[in-house]
């Protein structure tokens, strides 16, 4: 039996059933369906992966023709190769752990069933996104995860702030999606298909490297990618999206959906290789985003916002890797990041859960002894995030920095920027650890995480530690890129610097936030320091800029036009009619004198005209 269609279908059916029953089912059955369907899907993926590792056979499966008009014939069809399997494993594997965790985290929520309906729907959409054989089906998954993200960010709908964050997430990503839709139009119009493999072949045979059309097409696709993956300039939605329940942030806004942009570029990398300009743009976007977000993460107070900016920053690394054609390294970092960032979010969720929904790190402290499980999770997650040696993050980030260094021309710049980012990453992640888990306790936890929360944490700890040793079966997918990149002599001094940088960052964080041997209060209290902190705290004021440039003009225009300016024209016609009606009606006054006068006047006029004619 073919397992492929079953994999997205399991969570999809569960979601539809949960929606159709509208919360009537007892929580036990919801648990079974919600977490069970994703667990089963994970088992299917495992069996599929085992088969793939054994025979390396790429599988393709067409279910039915979706639309057929002229030569436009996208199908509901799946394509499973190494890249797809990596993504599927992350989605269902990490996804299952997060579902398990949610069982406890959401246990007291009145909308337990609605939560799992949305979560399952998300998993199904995300699976369709990565399994799609053509770009239109990918777009279906792409928009599907967007809607699920909207529904889950605004899950607690009673607070209008959550609704606002959800709308922002959807609308900002939709800006990117629209660019992507135009990209699909361009690709189809020029190449006559949207099926990914034939499309790549057609692009390679019809276009030369450096042509304008592939550049435009890839830039449009990139628009979609930066929207979904929260990269500059469309990154502003992600920090606000933290309004959703924390497991949602772990699943959607750390492990899976936000990496969809990375997947898209990796999936269509042959197209991007035809457009070196776009690739360079990708690299610079990645670098700029990773630095901007890292600086912002340094000064945040909200535990989830720190992690959100850290996610933006880490995806920046993935973009950087894509930009230097290190696709395998990028996907590798995608996977390790999914492990350790899901771990960090779940651990943060545990802190919030046990601390009466406290988000501010300065009201925490001393939790090391009070919540030991969470503390060790956080330590391991932060170590991997900071890329301390022998954690999973170390291997993937090291691979990215090395590839950046080897990029001809701009390489050293990208490498240096990435290194600065690594330093900042270590500082902000251990700032978080030291402030939350060491020092004085400001709030006492009122409970300990139970087994359903501790087990996923433990498993993710393991993955965050050993994930770096996984060998991903990506050579088949990226064969065309491999030929061009081929690793040269590994530069040992570069290696050593890469290893040392996070350790330096750890030391700085220790000196600043734990040992307090060094004080920077003289700088932070100065007016420049305050201004800089404020600037970073507000995410470099990008939000304010967009508000002034886009939101205000749009809503101003809407307010101005609210009462239908076009109607002024029609009202004008009506007024003209009424005016002529009144004027003419006035003639018919019923006064004999008036009639007689006008008759005489008319007669005189007539006679005058006749006389003129006669003459």
């Amino acid at each position, binding site marked *: 039996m073919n397992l492929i269609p079953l994999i997205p279908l399991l969570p999809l059916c569960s979601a539809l059933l949960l*929606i159709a029953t*509208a*919360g009537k089912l007892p929580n036990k059955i919801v648990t079974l369906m919600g977490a069970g369907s994703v667990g089963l899907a994970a088992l299917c993926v495992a069996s599929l992966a085992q088969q793939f590792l054994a025979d390396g056979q790429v599988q393709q499966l067409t279910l*039915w*023709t*979706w*639309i*057929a*008009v*002229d030569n*436009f014939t996208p199908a*509901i069809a799946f394509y499973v190769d190494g890249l797809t399997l990596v993504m599927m494993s992350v989605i269902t594997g990490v996804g299952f752990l997060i579902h398990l965790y949610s069982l406890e985290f959401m246990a007291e929520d009145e909308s337990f069933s609605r939560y799992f309906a949305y979560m399952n729907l998300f998993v199904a959409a995300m699976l369709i996104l990565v399994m799609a054989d053509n770009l*239109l089906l990918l*777009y*279906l998954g*792409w*928009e*599907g995860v967007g*809607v699920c993200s*909207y*529904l889950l960010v*605004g899950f607690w*709908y*009673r*607070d*209008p702030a959550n*609704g*606002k964050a*959800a*709308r922002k997430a*959807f*609308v900002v990503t*939709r*800006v990117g*999606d*629209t660019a992507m*839709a*135009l990209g*699909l*139009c*361009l690709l*189809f*119009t020029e190449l006559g298909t949207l099926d990914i493999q034939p499309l790549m072949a057609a692009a390679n045979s019809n276009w030369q490297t450096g042509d304008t059309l592939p550049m435009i097409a890839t830039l449009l696709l990139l628009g979609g990618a930066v929207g979904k993956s929260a990269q500059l300039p469309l990154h502003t939605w992600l920090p606000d999206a933290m309004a959703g329940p924390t497991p949602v942030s772990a699943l959607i806004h750390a492990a899976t959906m936000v990496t969809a942009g990375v997947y898209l570029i990796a999936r269509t990398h042959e197209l991007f290789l035809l457009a070196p300009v776009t690739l360079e743009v990708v690299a610079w976007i990645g670098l700029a985003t990773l630095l901007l977000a890292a600086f912002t993460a340094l000064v945040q107070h909200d535990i989830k916002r720190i992690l959100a900016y850290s996610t933006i920053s880490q995806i920046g690394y993935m973009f950087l890797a894509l930009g230097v054609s290190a696709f395998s390294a990028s996907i590798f970092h995608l996977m390790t990041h999914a492990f350790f960032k899901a771990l960090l979010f779940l651990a943060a969720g545990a802190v919030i859960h046990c601390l009466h929904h406290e988000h501010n790190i300065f009201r925490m402290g001393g939790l090391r002894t009070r919540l030991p499980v969470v503390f060790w999770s956080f330590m391991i997650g932060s170590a991997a995030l900071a890329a301390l040696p022998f954690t999973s993050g170390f291997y993937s980030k090291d691979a990215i920095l090395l590839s950046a260094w080897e990029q001809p021309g701009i390489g050293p710049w990208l490498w240096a920027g990435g290194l600065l980012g690594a330093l900042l990453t270590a500082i902000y992640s251990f700032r978080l650890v030291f402030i939350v888990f060491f020092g004085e306790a400001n709030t006492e936890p009122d409970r300990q995480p139970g087994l359903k929360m501790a087990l996923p944490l433990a498993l993710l700890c393991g993955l965050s530690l050993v994930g770096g040793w996984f060998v991903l079966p990506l050579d088949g997918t990226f064969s065309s890129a491999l030929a061009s990149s081929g690793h040269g002599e590994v530069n040992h001094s570069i290696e050593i610097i890469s290893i040392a940088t996070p350790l330096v960052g750890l030391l700085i964080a220790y000196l600043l936030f734990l040992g307090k041997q060094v004080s920077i209060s003289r700088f932070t209290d100065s007016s420049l320091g305050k201004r800089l902190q404020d600037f970073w705290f507000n995410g470099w004021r990008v939000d304010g800029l967009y508000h002034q440039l886009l939101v205000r003009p*749009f*809503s101003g*225009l*809407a*307010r101005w*036009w*609210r009462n*239908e300016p*076009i*109607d002024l*024209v*029609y009202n004008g016609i009506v007024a003209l009619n009424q005016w002529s009606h009144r004027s003419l009606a006035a003639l018919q006054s019923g006064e004999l004198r008036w009639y007689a006068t006008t008759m005489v006047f008319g007669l005189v006029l007539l006679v005058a005209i006749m006389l003129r004619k006669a003459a």
Partner: protein
Amino acid sequence: MSLSTLLLILLAGGLVAWFSERINKDLPRWVSLATIVLALLYLLAMVNGLEVGSFSVVPDPTSGDSWLIHSRQEWIPRFGISFELAMDGLSLLLVVLTLLLGVIAVAASWVEIDFKPGLFQANILWTLAGVSGVFLAMDLFLFFLFWEVMLIPMYLLIAIWGHENKAYAAMKFFIFTQVSGLLMLLSIMLLAWKGHEVTGSYSFSYFDLLGLQVEGRLGYAMMLGFFVAFTVKLPAFPFHTWLPDAHTQAPTAGSVLLAGILLKTGAYGLLRFAIPLFPEASMSFAPVAMGLGAAGVIYGAILAFAQTDFKRLVAYSSVSHMGFVLLGLYAWNSLALQGAVMQMVAHGVSTAALFMLAGALQHRLHTRNMEAMGGLWHNMPRMGACAMFFAIASLGLPGLGNFVAEFLILLGLFKVSPWMTAIAALGLITAAIYSLWMMQLTFQGKPDDSRDLKDFGLREMTAMAGMVIALIWLGLYPQPVLELAQPVLDSLQNLLDTGPKFAGAAL
């Protein structure tokens, strides 16, 4: 079995419904429902009779003849006016949509109408008859007759059973449609007179007039007569201002019919008459038409966002979505035309559902002002879930019918004008803005526990479920609809490619 019987069923059903009011006040709605179901069954039986066995009502596309049924009876022979009805895949699709949304309209007004329920149901059925007639008439004079016939019961629906400002809205609706209709009548008469000049005899038959191909200034002017009539109905920017008023004031069933099917007569008219009768003029006019379409997409979306009245918001969203139809029609290639047809169907369903929701909200809260709502999900989760579904459908989520429509239009349009496509695509963003804003104002936000509101019951959920399934089906397997329309669109495109000769051969 004939098409005129189909129309007769609806007209007679209206009379029966009207008089049944005297027996029992609850009877008319049952009569109405039975009549529509009967008409549907009759239609299906008729279609089934054509192709026994499989549901392939489409004749051989290679023959170029895509007509399923055609009947012609002399009416006013002196002027060549006949009672000519014909049905092809396109008309079949639209008549089925008309009747199905008729059922929805009756369901939506099941408990809403206390005043003269018999006459109310009669007007619904007569509207359905008029609209079906418009989709079936192949004599231009008869077409004009039906065009006017569908106007009057709709006017009465708004004027009698409407809300606070009904007289104004009904009058505005009537005058807009009437004035533009007169322009079309003028064009029709001119066209028949031109035909007389060429052939020596009068004929109002579509098939006779198709081959005329009046060119030059006169052709352009006549085309404009048709264009204005149809774009007022569509409605396209800047002729749309009657729609928000009519929708806001109409009773729920009126809004459902108005948005679901009456607007589609405008799109149908452009596709069937305005463009094929005047191909040359239409093609030179296409940039203007597409410009109006793109303007409508953006303008409608911005104004939708600005509204606080639920029905007005949905009305402006219709203006935006119909802009896509106009773009698709004047891009005039298979992809865009299929998209336009699909949009007619999908928008019909999704907007009918949104108006039904609006009606249900008004019935329960006695207001359409969204600022007085908020947090309704807490009170009515079932209704909230339905609203969320149709809001998301309306913003074009892939997997639902509206996406297939809009994407096909964009894809076809891109071949003609990438820049126009880019502008129209902005509509995808603005649609997200107003749809989600609508959800925020109504169902999300802080709930008011003092409200005691009844969630959707079985009747409403059945209607909603039907429309949900329809949109998912159109979104994931639109092929039956596409195949139904394809031969018609092919032959219309051939008509423009090969000119008068082809039209002559088709007779």
